[in-house]
């Protein structure tokens, strides 16, 4: 636990050097996107890796957080400092909503439901033009005092570190034990006195609220929201990051997110075929190394 957190802080300090070492906005932009996807992948892993439930709707919560910030800003003129907690909270409430069916349906049924949920959220964002701006979306003003890109990057990095510490503490606590227990054997978990329904709901709520926070951060980064950023394709990208990195391990989703954001940037030809590549990668990882990079590395070391 201690070493993980120390390593995390060290990494954050290194990241913080990006704006001064690598000149130019491009690198800072990439670093911001890495941070946002790290939060997304790590939060999805709470549900998918630790609790063993399938959710293909993480981008929906990203969208709910982003649109909450955009709509509040547009209609009430609220600032980022209100919109961030509001987006987190509203996404968490939507997470509870999606968590409810998880109490009854499991495995593939839950997976189907999450895809349906993802699509409903997208259709609402795209079609409820009066409220969401339809395909044109809503634009967002920069945050006062964080107008410069590097200042905003430090803000995003700070939120990312806080989110990761929360996840690390959660999974290292009794709550983490409970998640693993639900994943291993839900009936047994109940029989030893665990309220598994509450555990599953809370897991969904925390996971989606963190995705909502990431949504607010990304909305302020690209200065606006449009529905096409929150499709099932985005959900699939996050799933691929988690699976590639390694489910149910602290460093797994962090590694997966960093790799899959950086790879299309490094190989310029790949960007066009990103989703094809992600889909193929998802299948390949499941066949070759279902435990992901982190899981395979840990196994190597154990031997």
């Amino acid at each position, binding site marked *: 636990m201690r070493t993980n957190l120390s390593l995390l802080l060290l990494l954050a300090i290194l990241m913080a050097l990006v704006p001064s070492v690598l000149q130019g906005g491009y690198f800072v932009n990439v670093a911001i996107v890495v941070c946002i996807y790290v939060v997304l992948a790590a939060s999805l892993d709470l549900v998918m890796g630790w609790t063993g439930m399938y959710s293909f709707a993480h981008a929906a919560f990203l969208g709910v957080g982003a649109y909450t910030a955009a709509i509040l800003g547009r209609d009430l003129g609220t600032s980022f400092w209100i919109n961030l907690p509001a987006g987190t909270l509203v996404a968490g409430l939507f997470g509870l909503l999606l968590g409810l069916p998880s109490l009854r*349906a499991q495995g593939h049924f839950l*997976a189907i439901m999450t*895809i349906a949920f993802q699509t409903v959220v997208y259709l609402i964002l795209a*079609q409820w033009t009066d409220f969401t701006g339809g395909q044109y979306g809503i634009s967002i003003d920069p945050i006062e005092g964080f107008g410069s890109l590097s200042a905003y990057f430090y803000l995003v990095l700070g939120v990312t570190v806080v989110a990761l510490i929360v996840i690390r503490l959660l999974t290292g606590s009794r709550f983490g034990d409970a998640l693993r227990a639900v994943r291993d054997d839900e009936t047994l978990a109940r029989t030893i006195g665990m309220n598994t329904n509450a555990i599953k709901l809370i897991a969904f709520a925390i996971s989606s609220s963190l995705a909502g926070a990431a949504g607010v951060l990304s909305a302020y980064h690209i200065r606006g929201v449009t529905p096409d950023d929150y499709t099932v394709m985005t959900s699939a990208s996050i799933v691929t990051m988690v699976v590639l990195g390694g489910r149910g391990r602290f460093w797994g989703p962090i590694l997966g997110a960093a790799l899959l954001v950086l790879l299309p940037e490094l190989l310029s030809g790949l960007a066009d*075929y990103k989703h094809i590549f992600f889909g193929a990668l998802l*299948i390949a990882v499941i066949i070759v190394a279902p435990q992901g990079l982190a899981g395979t590395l840990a196994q190597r070391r154990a031997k």
Partner: protein
Amino acid sequence: MALLPQFLANGVVIGSSYVLVALGLTLIFGILKIVNFAHGEFYVLGGYLAVLGSQLLGFPPLPALVLVIVCMAAFGWGVERFIFLPIGKHDPTNVIIASFGLSILLQNVFLKVAGPEPMIAKSGLPAGAIRLGSVFLTSERIAIVAAAAVTVTVLLVVLRFTWVGLSLRALSENATVARISGINVRRVAVVTFMIGSSLAGLSGALMSSVFMVQPGGGVLVVMKAFIVVVMAGMGSIEGAIVAGLGLGVVEALVTGYLGSEMRDIIGFLIVIAVLAVRPQGLFGLKTERS
């Protein structure tokens, strides 16, 4: 009320396609216990193959459909052999993730190869509506229903009288007993998967002459097929026929009387509701290992 027969007829047309997709899914999902999220993309692929056959190669309707069936069977064989088989051996739940990956992969391949613009297949049938009593239907729509009826009949005969059918039914009753009594489970699995893929592709091909084929069109289709399978009860052929037609008719009525804007949202909400209320299917039995 004057339009009711027309709405019902439209419902039967759409319902026929649901029956075909759902039959493919119920064979794969209900009997082989493989959850294939990419089944909707199989449907779309069938549509593109029909466009390819009828527009680019200039095939008449029947050869075009044969092309679709053969290609889809081959495609199904490859997917089963190289994706689902290796995963299923280790951890069947991972099939969920892999088939989700396959669905994403195919959608984006369609987008790259065929482009985002919707396409339509040429049926080669005479244009114009045909009047049946108070109902007007184009010849393509009538052909869809007829082709679906023929396919379902053939399928029922195959399931009743051939070794594939007998083995399949044995397998759905009890996989272990089936294996002990000498049924080659591997061979049955492959053939079933090929039949299921062909049915999805055939359905997509038939519909492609009336409704546009587009890269993301499979998502809604697979959802509806799952709904039909769940309502019918896993692996129930007769149930899938009834539920598929039923869903088509209900949808046509909703579209006719309430308008089409909300149709897709309502469709997805029905998916969530059905699964939340009765996850084991309307006719399925709940089983709990003690």
